């Protein structure tokens, strides 16, 4: 039974995380928490792209929704952490639903463009509502470890526990979803939308569902990141964040949950390293902080052109179970429709956006 196996594995990982977090320094605990927060968001995105075949360049915006929701709930209502996290999932999912219903009819370029616009437009909302959302300064999110752990318990260790627990739960849910009927239906839609709808699947609803789930994951990731960093501000939710999430999903291997972990690790560890490399080569601080941004671009291009199955694909090949390429990337784009044997009378029909 896979659920039991997943739960068992999660338990083992949880124990390891707890032991590890006690050994690690506060800074490493902080990084661990960051990785877990990103992992939640990246996992949702990789499921969206890899399984349902839709692409979003706007999941940073849903992170913002989750982050701001948690900050507002904490400041105004003083809810406890678990409730806040759940509520931010719900709020982000609702935002995803509103957007997803509009986006369900959209394919490739339209959907990606609309989500790109969402990522660019949403941070401007914080400017408009200075009082409620704190403008450029943002809102602070102060979470302290619960009293029973004792007053001297390191907050970073507590954050690592919370985020890792949330990440584990998310991954278990996503893994089960992947193996469920919904997951199979997504793959059917991804591989051949027309065939899927002919076989009775509600394509639009399945696509919206995938979009909502990815938005909910992004919302949770955003709320967790807010807890870890202690602040939500529009400057943190730029287009660059959305593309960073995409980079992590692509680099890890689209559609694979372990890949989301590899990608998130890179997302947390590599930028600091690259920024340091930049400044040690005499770049100004502004310039060296752009090095990781350029690196995302290089990663996206190189992975797509050279090893589209990403890190996870590479690992699988290394350990023998050959999965050549994420299925979402294995179909060929044939821009010249008529190069295929033409059906009489349809030879000049343009191929629709796909």
């Amino acid at each position, binding site marked *: 039974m896979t659920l039991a196996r997943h739960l068992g594995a999660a338990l083992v990982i949880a124990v390891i995380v707890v032991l590890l977090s006690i050994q690690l320094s506060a800074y490493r605990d902080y990084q661990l928490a960051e990785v877990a927060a990103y992992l939640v968001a990246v996992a949702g995105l990789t499921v969206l792209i890899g399984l349902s075949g839709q692409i979003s360049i706007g999941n940073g915006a849903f992170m913002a929704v989750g982050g701001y929701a948690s900050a507002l709930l904490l400041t105004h209502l003083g809810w406890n952490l678990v409730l806040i996290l759940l509520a931010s999932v719900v709020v982000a999912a609702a935002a995803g639903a509103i957007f997803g219903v509009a986006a369900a009819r959209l394919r490739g370029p339209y959907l990606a463009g609309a989500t790109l*616009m969402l990522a*660019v437009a949403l941070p401007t909302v914080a400017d408009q509502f200075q009082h409620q959302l704190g403008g450029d300064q943002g809102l602070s999110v102060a979470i302290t470890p619960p009293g029973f752990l004792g007053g001297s318990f390191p907050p970073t260790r507590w954050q690592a526990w919370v985020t890792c627990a949330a990440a584990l739960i998310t991954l278990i849910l996503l893994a089960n979803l992947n193996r469920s009927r919904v997951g199979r239906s997504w793959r059917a839609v991804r591989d051949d939308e027309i065939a899927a709808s002919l076989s009775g699947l509600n394509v639009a609803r399945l696509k919206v569902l995938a979009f909502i789930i990815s938005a909910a994951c992004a919302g949770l990731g955003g709320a967790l990141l807010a807890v870890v960093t202690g602040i939500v501000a529009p400057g943190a939710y730029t287009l660059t964040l959305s593309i960073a999430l995409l980079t992590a999903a692509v680099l890890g291997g689209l559609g694979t949950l372990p890949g989301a972990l590899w990608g998130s690790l890179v997302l947390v560890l590599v930028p600091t390293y690259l920024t340091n490399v930049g400044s040690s080569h005499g770049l100004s601080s502004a310039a060296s902080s*752009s090095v990781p941004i350029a690196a995302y*671009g*290089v990663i996206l291009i190189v992975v797509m052109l050279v090893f589209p199955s990403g890190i996870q694909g590479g690992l699988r090949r290394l350990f023998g179970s050959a999965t050549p390429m994420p299925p979402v990337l294995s179909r060929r*784009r044939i821009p*010249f429709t008529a190069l295929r044997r033409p059906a009489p009378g349809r030879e000049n029909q*343009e191929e629709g956006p796909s």
Partner: protein
Amino acid sequence: MQEFLEFTLGGIATGMIYAAIALSLVLIWRGTRILNYSQGGMAMFTTYVAWLVIQHTGSYWAGFAVALAAGLVLGSVLEFAVVRPTENKAPLNAVIVTIGLLILLEGLAGIIYGGQYRSFPAAFSIKGLKAGSVGLGISPNDVFTAAAVLGAAVILALVFRYTSVGLRLRATAFAPAVARLLGVRIGRVLTLGWALAGLFGALAGVLVTSSTFLYPNSMDSIFVLGFTAAVIGGLDSPVGAVVGGIVLGVVLSYAGGYLGSNLVLVYGLAALVLVLMIRPTGLFSSGVTRRV
């Protein structure tokens, strides 16, 4: 009433910028069925090049010309080096590659020029024009902006209609396989399409940046609005792109003018979603049926 006039004229001037971006997107979409998400990044980058030239020579027009040339070169180089290899792969590859190009260009601009906001000169005065005592809400520079985009679009239309290069471009867009069988070297035509797109993007970049600032993300919002304009116009039609740009510019000018300008991007997003829900093929598409 005077406000309305100002908003309308101002909207048309801004709309021409969106039209230029929309045209650049349409030029590539028609030939390759790729939406070039890096168009804004390309325009930003060529505007930096213009800025650099203006710094060194002190001549706005030198910078202007170099930016357009840089757009041509950048477009063709990117097509050949990065986009061409995705030709036989899944559509998602091309999407992700152009997103990668966008962030790469933005990162490179940050590394080379730093992240600070820089002001970019205008070609002409930015003082408001008046008809008698009535302010028109636009400056001579706005007039130049609109005229430049319109002029470029007209030249493009003439090239499309009356030259053999234009015939190749159109044939490749409508029926690439037929064009190939008639000896048209598709690869070169596609590269040319990207080069022209780079040119229009560069034009939009230098024109718009005089009224904003120049920084690595400076074209993000312009790009998404240009994309919206292209969608309004149907993505396939150059005329639709220009009309879509003007319509969007005017609508957003009213919305910004009467409702407050902070949320212009949100209004733009609303417009995009609305158009996509009502007519996913755009308001001005020629009615060619798309496979759903």
